[in-house]
């Protein structure tokens, strides 16, 4: 009785759910790990291939490059949008939020095909530019890495805006006034006071965008025109078409481990709970 009285009773309420997650999620996860070590033959062969095979190294590099660029662009654009939202009248902010959320809710397939309609060789933009006499040959905006980046950044901006906006709204405006009062120029106030105060939001947004980008499948597959191969699509092909389940499982494990490692490293530098919207300290 004394033991259970020390335990927060709330745990009892979530215990069944935790158990369910453990069994339904943890079980298959262990299975994947096992598969990566045993298929096609026991050992670390699948992991060694990661270093030995040029194709896998290229795959990882493409994925990292696309995800990093997506993260940087999404955070910069998201920061500008959030900054505007934090500094307009409330009614305008609500209207802006509505637009952010609408784009948040549109299916990724619809967006992807819309980009092709807009930016394709025969799309609205290229046709417009040709009609206007500005270009003679269509510009390849999509079906290449640029297309993938456009599609992914567009998808990811709301994920960057929301945590950054939350951080900005939490800033005490008087701190900025104090900075001006002490003689700082507007730019100085921004770089030395405002930006550092929004850092938790930036890190949370960047983390969210990067982790979500790692698993992107539909957008690179379609907007990349088959030439931008990222880990998620490769895993799917190895499972469904080539039946290299060991390779697929290895890549899944590597991806999961990198995400966890990323979270761990960040947790050394800052309180993750604060970045991810948990308890304020």
């Amino acid at each position: 009785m004394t033991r259970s009285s020390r335990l927060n009773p709330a745990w009892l309420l979530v215990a069944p759910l935790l158990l369910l997650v453990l069994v339904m999620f943890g079980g298959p996860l262990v299975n994947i790990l096992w598969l990566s070590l045993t298929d096609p033959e026991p050992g670390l062969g699948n992991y060694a291939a990661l270093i030995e095979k040029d194709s896998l190294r290229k795959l990882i590099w493409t994925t990292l490059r696309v995800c990093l660029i997506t993260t940087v662009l999404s955070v910069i654009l998201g920061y500008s949008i959030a900054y505007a939202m934090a500094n307009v009248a409330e009614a305008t902010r609500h209207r802006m939020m509505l637009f952010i959320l609408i784009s948040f809710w549109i299916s990724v397939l619809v967006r992807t095909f819309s980009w092709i309609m807009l930016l394709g060789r025969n799309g609205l933009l290229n046709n417009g530019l040709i009609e206007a006499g500005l270009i003679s040959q269509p510009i390849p905006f999509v079906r290449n890495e640029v297309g993938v980046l456009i599609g992914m950044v567009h998808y990811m901006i709301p994920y960057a805006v929301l945590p950054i906006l939350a951080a900005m709204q939490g800033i005490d405006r008087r701190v900025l006034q104090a900075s001006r009062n002490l003689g700082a120029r507007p730019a100085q106030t921004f770089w030395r006071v405002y930006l550092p105060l929004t850092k938790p939001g930036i890190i949370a947004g960047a983390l969210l965008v990067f982790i979500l980008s790692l698993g992107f499948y539909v957008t690179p597959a379609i907007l990349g025109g088959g030439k931008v191969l990222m880990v998620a699509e490769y895993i799917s092909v190895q499972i469904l078409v080539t039946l290299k389940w060991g390779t697929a499982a290895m890549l899944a494990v590597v991806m999961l481990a990198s995400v966890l490692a990323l979270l761990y490293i960040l947790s050394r530098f800052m309180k993750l709970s604060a970045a991810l919207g948990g308890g304020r300290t």
Partner: protein
Amino acid sequence: MQDKQFMRETVTEAAHAFRAGRLDRRSFLALCGMAGVALPSVLAGKAEAAAGEIVMWNWGGQSEECHGSAIGVPFTAETGMPLKFDTSGPLQGKIKEMVDSGNVTADVCDADLFDAVALGATGHLEPIDYAVVSKDKTLPQYALEFGTSIILYGYAFMYDTEAYPDGAPANWADFFDLEKFPGQRSLYKWANGSLEAALMADGVAKDALYPLDLDRALAKITAIKDSTIYWGSGSEAHDMLVNGEVSMGMVWQNRGRNIEQETNGRYKMVMDGAIAMPGAYIVPKGNPGGREAVMKFIAVSQSVDAQLGLFSCLGMTPTNPEAVAMISAEDAPYAITSEANMAVIALNDPTWWGQNTDAAVNAFLEAIS
């Protein structure tokens, strides 16, 4: 896993007996209970129905309707068994997973003949019973131990007639010739068909393609890579053409006629060097409806009426020579194995692909990415 298999067989047997009236309902339910079949699933008719229906695992869309009218209707008329559908697409990995998990819910998969070679070798399929299914109603080389070809689809290319007013491309060599025929191209991104096309463009004879020379094919493909985009589905291939993204594109041959009609002849299909792909019906090991019923189903799908029905509904060419002979002169150019086409097309080798898909697909992906 063995126990599970045994229990399922017990229940399936019991379900057969229950349907035939040899077993009363109470005993049947008791048996299900002992075998661990949850009551809800029995109430939902799962185990019960397993013995009395055929579930076809196909690709959805139009094919559900077409398989239903062309094969389902005559099959039900003949056997009293309904045909049901799972439209999630029987890719090799999914079939393997289904059989490995011991929870087989499909009786017959609308798959490729190379899947029959790959999955048959690993013990994931039921062998075809050629006492019920006829070897004479398909192409001789396409009646294999673990699958028989019912229809042929294929890969061909189409071009934009407005892009090439001074002379149309006539074969794969023209397709790969960017100097003579400038413009964007599209190819299938999972290697199949694209490799054969590249080899024919490089001068390999259509009946000397296999075993595929991967390096030679990939060299040809990477040479035009900067002007090529790659599609993963038939509708994507269709869109790339009619949206003007490419001026020449590979398509699924059976969809070519639709594209020609839809665009009033602006896009034209080239049959020279088209690659005929044997679409096959394959049976996952331990299928719920039993081997006997599913073999009967495959036999019905070989009938002339069923095959002609699929041809007019999906554009896929019959394998039954009797059905091919009945295709009208107007439709013949679109039947990939019509007499005239046979002289110019290549036939896919399912055995090579069944044994080499992993190497070919991964080498292709590496080359294009």
